[in-house]
């Protein structure tokens, strides 16, 4: 064993250099730990208290959750979320994929067309909601337009129909997001190995069949991402409801995000509001945890 020489001492400047990365990251670490996880925990705690207009820390166990589940409005909001989310995701996907496949056929002025499909994504949901509220206005909007154009029996009064108002939200949300889904799938299609398509053509498959059987199945990851993003948008949807219907008529177009806002900030039911926020978090986790898990596993297999 040769003697091990002592390390030469590093200068103070070097020591600072060694700490710099940690120092630079420290504020963000603090923000994330407190502002993300600390606050979630705080909300979690509030959901077990009888807080109303102001936070009080009197423990009431699961009482707020019980009140939430007894609340008809919460069930309407949850049911609306299921209907809105399901239809929004399905329709957006169908439109997005169709437009992407069509646009992938060496279309002239593709860039221009893409720009048109995608511009709603740049708008605020409030602007979208305002526009569609006007378009769907019973008596003055599309309702009147189509009658003016000669469709005498046309009626479009969904915006004031408690049973159909949620479809109005679907229409506006699809208009806003479908161009984005189109862009995602178009990018995916551009990434598909062209030799696969050529090989299938040599095998004698028709173009629609090639897309259906070969190309689209290879876009499974894009499909998953798209569903995840859309579900995420649906659960967080708040601005659109606020601008288009404010939850009405009555509370027939409420979504959980709207419910949470009005109970917490308008009706002074902080405990119930917190409980509903925690349930929303649970819904998001139920979607992203399996997604992240499969993503990470796929990466490990690489």
């Amino acid at each position: 064993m040769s003697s091990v020489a002592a390390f030469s001492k590093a200068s103070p400047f070097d020591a600072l250099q060694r700490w710099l990365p940690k120092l630079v990251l420290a504020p963000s670490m603090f923000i994330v730990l407190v502002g993300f996880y600390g606050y979630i925990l705080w909300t979690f705690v509030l959901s077990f208290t009888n807080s109303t207009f102001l936070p009080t820390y009197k423990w009431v166990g699961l009482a707020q959750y019980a009140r939430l589940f007894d609340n008809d409005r919460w069930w309407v909001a949850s049911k609306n979320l299921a209907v809105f989310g399901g239809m929004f995701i399905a329709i957006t996907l169908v439109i997005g994929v169709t437009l992407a496949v069509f646009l992938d056929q060496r279309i002239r002025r593709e860039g221009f067309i893409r720009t048109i499909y995608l511009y709603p994504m740049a708008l605020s949901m409030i602007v979208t909601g305002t526009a569609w509220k006007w378009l769907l206005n019973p008596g003055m909007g599309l309702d009147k337009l189509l009658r003016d154009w000669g469709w005498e029996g046309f009626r479009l009064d969904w915006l004031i129909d408690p049973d159909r108002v949620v479809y109005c939200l679907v229409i506006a949300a699809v208009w806003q997001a479908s161009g984005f889904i189109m862009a995602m799938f178009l990018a995916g299609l551009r990434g598909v190995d062209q030799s696969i398509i050529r090989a299938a053509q040599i095998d004698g498959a028709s173009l629609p069949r090639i897309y259906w059987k070969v190309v689209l199945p290879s876009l499974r990851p894009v499909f998953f991402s798209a569903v995840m993003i859309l579900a995420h948008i649906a659960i967080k949807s708040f601005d659109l409801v606020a601008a288009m219907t404010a939850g009405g008529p009555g509370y027939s177009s409420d979504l959980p995000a709207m419910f949470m806002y009005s109970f917490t900030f308008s009706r002074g039911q902080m405990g119930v509001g917190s409980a509903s926020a925690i349930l929303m978090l649970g819904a998001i986790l139920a979607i992203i945890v399996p997604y992240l898990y499969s993503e990470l596993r796929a990466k490990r297999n690489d």
Partner: protein
Amino acid sequence: MATLELRNVNKTYGAGLPDTLKNIELSIKEGEFLILVGPSGCGKSTLMNCIAGLENITGGAIMIDDQDVSGLSPKDRDIAMVFQSYALYPTMSVRENIEFGLKIRKMPRADIDEEVARVAKLLQIEHLLNRKPGQLSGGQQQRVAMGRALARRPKIYLFDEPLSNLDAKLRVEMRTEMKLMHQRLKTTTVYVTHDQIEAMTLGDKVAVMKDGIIQQFGTPKQIYNDPANLFVASFIGSPPMNFIPLRLQRKDGRLLALLDSGQARCELPMSMDDAGLEDREVILGLRPEQIVLASADAAGMPTIRAEVQVTEPTGPDTLVFVQLNEAKVCCRLAPDVAPQVGETLTLQFDPAKVLLFDAKTGERLGTAASLPVQDRADNVTRIKGR
């Protein structure tokens, strides 16, 4: 220029993890060209990063000019490095790339200009100085990367597989050029490669590494002719050394290896003779160029007849494959005597050049009598397994 010495260097990425570097001992003199060679994952690049100070060692000492630098940050070690990817700063021009280190070190403007001019002239990149790296060919980028290293006139130059991103032809050209440059500048250099030809052609000293351990440290000639173990013997040389597993026998008091080509048998007398070798499973190593066609003037050498199974003409030589015992054996013959497939050849060996390895541990057995004594330098390090 400087000397470099590694004393018992160890590196591990954490308790419980296997050692990345284990008891590395080597030293080179001023102006020497050291090659670190080995398969990927052998620790050669880690060792280089440790010398540069980009990674910390967990034990031992790195001495530059007899001064321990292992606690110093990279910038204080006075080292320059050329990377496999060249790592040229993409937003800076060639001139700015070369100047960068000098500016950081606050060298006066006039000196910087002078230094850039010197390096550009040396590497013939004067016409490229105002271009961005993205506008250069691979070979030109390589030169700029070297220029950046040369400009600082550091004590030690490190090269991390600098030629491996070049195409085959350019790689050979640049290899020669690097050798010329080193002969002129006499810079102390550490050069990492996985290419054994680069190792043989460029190095004054070669360290063959595997699993974080130096398998052998010596001159290229020692490594080639006198490999410390089976790994070194198989790693260095192209086409690789032939290995024939067999059991040594004693007949009439002489130690023999029995070779069988299917057509004939041959008793190959061993030039070394230790009592322990008898009846032992060994691997017999023979380089392809040491199997030659039998000729009249080499009478007394052992010969064997064998059928040609495959021939591979490479141009300067033709590689001929025959079956000996269980092994496919490659012989390197002159193209003009190259036989046809199916033909039977009479081959001849020089028993003095045969190497023996332990079949289990891969360690060299006996000592080859083939080498002149003075060629087996004393500082050949052979590290036995744990």
